[in-house]
């Protein structure tokens, strides 16, 4: 085998340009596949984080009568549809025992009116939630003029779109009149002081629209005058978003048995555009991977065929000297395998290096929508199953791609190959 191996290396060195082309395409294909598979895995696992960090959460437990489809979580509900404290407690206790769930919190979705400087009325939608018990790091997202909002700050965030439109900034310290729904379905008006705000400059306005965050759930309740700690929903987060299909039916079954007036809905229902973005991203990356692998396979087949045509006489000579068809096929297949394996290995190492660097530095991307969604300092990592699957794919490419022309070359007649000199 050592002698065959040496012969392969000599032949590869002889066709240097061809070797380099296959090497480079294998390298590029392996690099991108390795990188994107690991990043896709990261994104898939972090979907819960992503949408939890945004406004949607990953799944919500709320009253059955509430229509959530395409509402992005800002749905309308009747006061009697709010969750009672015992329901909230029971659901949170149940979710704490589900291993796939990373956390849960109750929230109040509200809408109302805000009066701007010239008494212009603006409608708004908002979420009141307890930042202190929020299991995601929101401090890096909600800030005004560069200073983060501290946990537990009452009435911390009440930025409005018209405020930003007018001043191109969030004005901290400004007071607004908020109209908030009370338990009886009426509005109560309250002064709210802006102590922070979402920096809308990082958000495309057509996606986000106007919204308000109220990071003090108890403060909100007392401001509105609730006698009991009610909530409009319990939001739960999955450790891995892909477990939704398995976990949500279990939660649904639990609710049917214990809280028949409630239901569980996935973010895929109330924010389908995000599901489409993730799906589109997956499809795009996988298509690029598939195209690269297909190019790699076709190129190897084509270049191995060239190599065989160029070495017709050699094939004939070797057959005459006693090399069998299997020996000839092995020779060309081994040459193809070595070059693809070398290219893929280099590509894997390069991609691994890039992932390591990104892991150390984090992906800082503060100016895009995804930075807001994913968060600053997103650190990609390695996933054993992805490393194994990508390695197996390229191993299969390295074995199978040169095999077809190698087998064709081995079936050539000795006489014909010797005559082709």
């Amino acid at each position: 085998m050592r002698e065959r191996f040496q012969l392969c290396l000599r032949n590869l060195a002889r066709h240097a340009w061809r070797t380099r082309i296959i090497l480079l395409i294998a390298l590029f294909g392996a690099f991108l596949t390795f990188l994107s598979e690991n990043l896709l895995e990261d994104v898939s696992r972090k979907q819960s984080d992503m949408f939890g960090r945004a406004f949607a959460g990953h799944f919500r437990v709320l009253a059955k009568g509430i229509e959530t489809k395409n509402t992005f979580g800002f749905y309308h509900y009747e006061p009697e549809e709010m969750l009672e404290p015992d329901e909230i407690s029971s659901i949170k206790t149940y979710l704490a025992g589900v291993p796939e769930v990373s956390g849960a919190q109750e929230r109040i979705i509200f809408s109302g009116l805000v009066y701007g400087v010239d008494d212009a009325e603006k409608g708004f939608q908002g979420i009141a939630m307890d930042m202190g018990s929020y299991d995601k790091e929101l401090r890096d997202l909600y800030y005004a003029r560069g200073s983060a909002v501290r946990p537990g700050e009452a009435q911390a965030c009440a930025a409005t779109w018209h405020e930003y439109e007018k001043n191109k900034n969030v004005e901290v310290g400004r007071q607004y009149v908020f109209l908030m729904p009370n338990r009886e379905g009426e509005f109560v008006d309250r002064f709210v002081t802006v102590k922070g705000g979402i920096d809308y400059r990082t958000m495309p306005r057509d996606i986000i629209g106007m919204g308000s965050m109220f990071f003090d759930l108890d403060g909100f309740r007392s401001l509105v005058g609730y006698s009991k700690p009610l909530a409009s929903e319990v939001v739960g987060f999955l450790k891995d978003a892909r477990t939704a299909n398995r976990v949500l039916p279990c939660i649904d079954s639990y609710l049917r048995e214990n809280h028949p007036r409630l239901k569980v809905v996935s973010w895929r229902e109330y924010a389908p555009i995000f599901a489409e973005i993730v799906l589109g991203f997956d499809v795009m990356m996988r298509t690029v991977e598939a195209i690269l692998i297909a190019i790699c396979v076709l190129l190897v087949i084509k270049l191995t065929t060239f190599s065989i045509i160029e070495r017709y006489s050699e094939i004939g000579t070797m057959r005459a000297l006693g090399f069998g068809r299997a020996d000839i096929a092995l020779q060309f297949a081994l040459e193809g395998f070595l070059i693809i394996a070398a290219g893929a290995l280099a590509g894997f190492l390069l991609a691994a290096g890039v992932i390591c660097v990104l892991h150390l530095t984090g992906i800082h991307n503060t100016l895009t929508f995804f930075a807001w969604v994913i968060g600053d300092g997103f650190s990609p990592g390695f996933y054993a199953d992805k490393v194994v699957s990508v390695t197996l794919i390229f191993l299969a490419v390295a074995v199978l791609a040169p095999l077809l022309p190698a087998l064709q070359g081995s079936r050539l007649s000795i006489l014909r190959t010797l005559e082709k000199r």
Partner: protein
Amino acid sequence: MNGITIRGLSKDYHLGKTVVRALRAIDLEIKSGSFACVAGPSGSGKTTLLNMIGLIDAPTAGSVRIAGQDIQTLSEQARTRYRSRTLGFIFQSFNLLPVLDVFENIHLPLILHSELAREEKRERVMELVRAVGLEDHVRHKPYELSGGQRQRVAIARALVTHPRIVLADEPTANLDSVTGNEVLDLMERINAERGTTFIFSSHDPGIMRRAKRVIRLHDGEVEAA
């Protein structure tokens, strides 16, 4: 019998609608240890005959027996093994592998002989390198050698597996007369020393004279043997 027995050997080639009769029912006996030249003008069937004996081409009719074995009845695997163990080939254009040096080219057929130890293979190759007088060129690539030197490498490669029969198709055709005679000297010496059967083709009268036996072909038939 240890030699080669050819009976009623015919070969037809179909070129479109035309049938070219390359060999016409040849009968021949070639004894073991012969130094025979297959002679004849171009198109007489010399190469075709060597290809039949060398299992490179299949006859249309007739048989070739080597040491009593009808080689046409062998399976593909057995034919390959036969070429590797019993036969040696020398080509008109040398057919050396350009990526391999002299040592490696001679060593090439031994890749298939896994029963031999590495050291034994090396000794066999070096013995032949010395026999063909290329000790100083052992690491030279084919393009660094003259035509005569290349053919000597090809002869050494043909002999390295210790074949019983060496088939050489116009081994001197690409060489000048002096070098051609040197190559013939070498083949003659090996034939005498080892008893290897040499069957070579040529249309050069000077080369024919060197053969112990001349088999003359004309239009696919044996004119004189």
